[in-house]
């Protein structure tokens, strides 16, 4: 079984910060905006190197999204950063009208998504953002799993012409994808070949899926594991091909089971290859204060939860 090595825990938001800094050096059209969260979004290096290309909007996310839309008129590629909650729900109509419907080339960069934001609690832990964003026509939705992938994704989305929602997080997590990876929007990453069950994970749950697959292997269960970093457009072929082979699927995400990756997978399978599915996700609930690990355990978002879901789905085959 292939071994994925954690090269040292790092936060995905720092991957965003490094990617943005690199873009600042390589693409003169890239500009950045932030609504009073520079430190949290790791944007300081970009700002130090390109002060004229940075726009501090203050605590005014609606204006930030509108300004980002306006900056595209004149050829700029704006990266607008704030917490996922304030980058989606708070400004949904601004994104809908001024960015998505208007077809503007804005990159919405959302940190601190999900319960792993931790102690700040439910006011800041959005678990609905993937659903909100994937419903917008023309919006690309990406949820990266580690530092290296987030950095690669940040750089890649600058080359994509159109609005993108890039979702990442706060805690330091395993960094296991290749440093020199080529990030292809809409292309699934196959982590393990298996025959008994398909495990499809996104974001922080990808590392948990790897841990789960290794433990399942010890129990004689062979898991096909797919890292879906792009929830929209979804790599439907990778999903269908895998489930045709395994006959059942477990989806895993740090998001409500309503509106998330699991629903996108279920819709794809319902249309092309119906199969039993279990959802590792929050169950239509808000989060709460706690450490990231405590919250992932309490809300059933870890390797153990994936193993339990796998055992359950296997019985439904």
């Amino acid at each position, binding site marked *: 079984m292939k071994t994925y090595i954690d090269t040292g825990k790092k936060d995905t938001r720092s991957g965003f910060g490094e990617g943005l800094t690199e873009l600042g050096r390589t693409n003169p059209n890239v500009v950045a905006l932030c609504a009073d969260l520079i430190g949290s979004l790791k944007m300081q290096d970009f700002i130090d190197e390109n002060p004229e290309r940075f726009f501090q909007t203050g605590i005014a996310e609606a*204006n930030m999204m*509108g*300004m980002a839309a306006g*900056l595209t*008129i004149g050829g*700029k590629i704006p990266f607008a950063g704030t917490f996922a909650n304030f980058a989606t729900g708070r400004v949904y109509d601004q994104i809908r009208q001024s960015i998505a419907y*208007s077809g503007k080339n804005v990159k919405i960069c959302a940190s601190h998504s999900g319960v792993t934001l931790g102690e700040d609690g439910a006011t800041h832990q959005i678990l609905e953002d993937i659903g909100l964003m994937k419903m917008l026509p023309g919006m690309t939705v990406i949820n990266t799993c580690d530092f290296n992938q987030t950095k690669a994704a940040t750089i890649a989305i600058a080359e994509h012409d159109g609005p993108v929602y890039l979702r990442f997080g706060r805690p330091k997590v395993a960094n296991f994808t290749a440093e020199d990876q080529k990030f292809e929007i809409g292309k699934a990453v196959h982590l393990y070949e298996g025959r008994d069950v398909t495990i499809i994970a996104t974001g922080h749950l990808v590392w948990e899926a790897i841990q789960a697959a290794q433990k399942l292997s010890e129990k004689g269960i062979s898991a096909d594991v797919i890292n879906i970093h792009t929830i929209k457009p979804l790599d439907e072929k990778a999903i269908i091909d895998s489930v045709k082979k395994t006959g059942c699927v477990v989806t895993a995400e740090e998001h409500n089971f309503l509106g998330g990756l699991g629903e996108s997978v279920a819709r794809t399978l319902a249309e092309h290859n119906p199969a039993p599915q279990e959802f590792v996700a929050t169950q239509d609930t808000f989060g709460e204060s706690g450490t990231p690990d405590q919250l992932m355990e309490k809300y059933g978002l870890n390797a153990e939860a994936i193993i339990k879901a796998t055992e359950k789905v296997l019985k439904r085959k």
Partner: protein
Amino acid sequence: MSKIKELEDFATQVRRDILRQVHKVNSGHPGGSLGCTEFFTALYQGGIMEHNPEFNMDGKEEDLFFLSNGHISPVFYSTLARSGYFPVDELNTFRLINSRLQGHPTTHEGLPGIRVASGSLGQGMSVALGAAQAKKLNKDNHLVFALLGDGELQEGQNWEAIMYAAGNKVDNLIATVDLNGQQIDGSTETVLPMGNMKAKFEAFGWDVIELEDGNNMQQVLDGLNEAKSRTGKGKPVCVLMTTVMGNGVDFMMHTHAWHGKAPNDEQLETGLAQNPETLGDY
């Protein structure tokens, strides 16, 4: 013919176009459109804006205009069509299925002259701000214009943008507020009194010009030229333009009743008779 008379004739034809567009589909917003006819004429025909009907979304090396109160699309469409952005006959398709002339303006169908969708109120000023900042980055000395409704200023996003523009010395931006004192549910005074608009903008750090009669072509030209002369001096410029909703059609004036209502056949004839054909109907 004097330049003013030419512009007034253009505005009269635009009024006819507004009435005919909304009458045909029995929907749309004639009141605010009629009130802003002189403003649009001045921008696109009166030499206020340097603009290119060979439309390019990026709009480099030209002045840009953003309509935030998108519901007054009939005046925008007529002005753009008659300024060469798209065929005048296309006004026939206003609000019809498969049209580029959607109820509220959009980039989605590729209509030349539109740079952002608007209709959900309160968003245009922020977009104009971003475009103005892009012009500065591009070392493009042209200006960005925006039009907002007065009722629209009840949306909080405007005040985020107003604060940002002054705090960051966005002095290549001229935002005009259409002070017609009306909104859907009644007068702005009865729906939500907004107090002293001039004092509010000045308190936020803007350079404010009061344009007393936004339906007088000469005054509109003078006011907007004065606004242009005040750009580049470290402050965003606001033009508080008092207009009469429904201006030019007597039974539509001084009331909010025609905010979003189309005239019937008889009312159309009355309105058209008050605005005789000048450039030719589409």
